[in-house]
């Protein structure tokens, strides 16, 4: 019997993105936050895509594969759109940490004005 090849980091990002799209769809149910949901999910997808590109051929460990499986399961339990919006920020942070992204990947120190 042939053993299945270990998933790559890119495979796990793809798996996570599928869950993330579902969260985003749920969060869009709050009309007042539609734009925020679009902008937020777009920004985090770029981070996840960048990780997948940077580590495209890298094999994931069993612990990483289990982590993504588990956090996707957790996100899948969310049914409230307000909580889904909370998870649009939390979920990618957990995924990036689990897949070994530099802890500073999404870090940005600065003033509130820095966003403008």
């Amino acid at each position: 019997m042939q053993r299945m090849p270990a998933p790559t980091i890119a495979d796990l990002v793809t798996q996570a993105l599928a869950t993330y799209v579902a969260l985003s769809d749920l969060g869009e149910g709050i009309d007042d936050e539609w734009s925020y949901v679009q902008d937020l999910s777009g920004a985090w997808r770029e981070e996840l895509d960048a990780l997948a590109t940077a580590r495209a051929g890298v094999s994931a460990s069993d612990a990483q594969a289990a982590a993504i499986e588990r956090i996707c399961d957790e996100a899948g339990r969310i049914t409230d759109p307000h909580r889904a919006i909370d998870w649009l920020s939390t979920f990618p942070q957990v995924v990036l940490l689990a897949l070994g992204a530099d802890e500073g990947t999404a870090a940005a120190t600065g003033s509130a004005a820095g966003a403008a």
Partner: protein
Amino acid sequence: MRFQDAAPDARAATYARIQADPLVHAAAEALLDASLGERVMARAVMNGETLEPDGWRTCFPTLFGPTAEDATRAHAERVLGAVLAIAERGAGVRDQYRGALVEELTARLLARRAGDAVKRERRILFDGVRAEIHPYDVTVERAGAAEAHDCKWGARGVGADVLHQLDDAHQHAAEEDERLTVGLVVFDAALSCLVRLDAQTAPSAGIDLVTIETLDTLARPRTGASR
């Protein structure tokens, strides 16, 4: 410019009981010297549905996985236990507990450099200016180096009202030739905060932003003017 205790009301009294809950203090203590990974775990657990610790251990292989060092795992267990205790309080009161936790953590970090000058739930009064109803969550009351911080659990809590309040305080202090650093402390990722702020039209130029990645900067000596 002068500081004053917030006027007591029924809502404040209820919230004060949550602020004083030993669960909040235990979680803040555990998060005080936590890594970014532990703080993200805390955010996930207190946002999450699952109350079973093994599931969360699986989500964070850098903290609990086979390659994690014993000391890393031990501290992460302490954080996990403390934040699960808050998550177990249920969705009905979880929001208030999370808010109280961010305030307590902020106050403890600031106290590392400002000691007894750190106060909670204080209003700031300026001559000839009507006082804001809502107090600031955490203040540092030192002559020539005062600070006012508003604390938020998530980026979504950042809105025009809090930005205007902080900006007004900053402006009024400047009019009195007082130095007042105003800041937003958000227990969420910088990226999410910047996305949120980018959509706001309220002023934010003089407001410091401290996020889950940069919480420890609250404890370090200030090196310059507010950003």
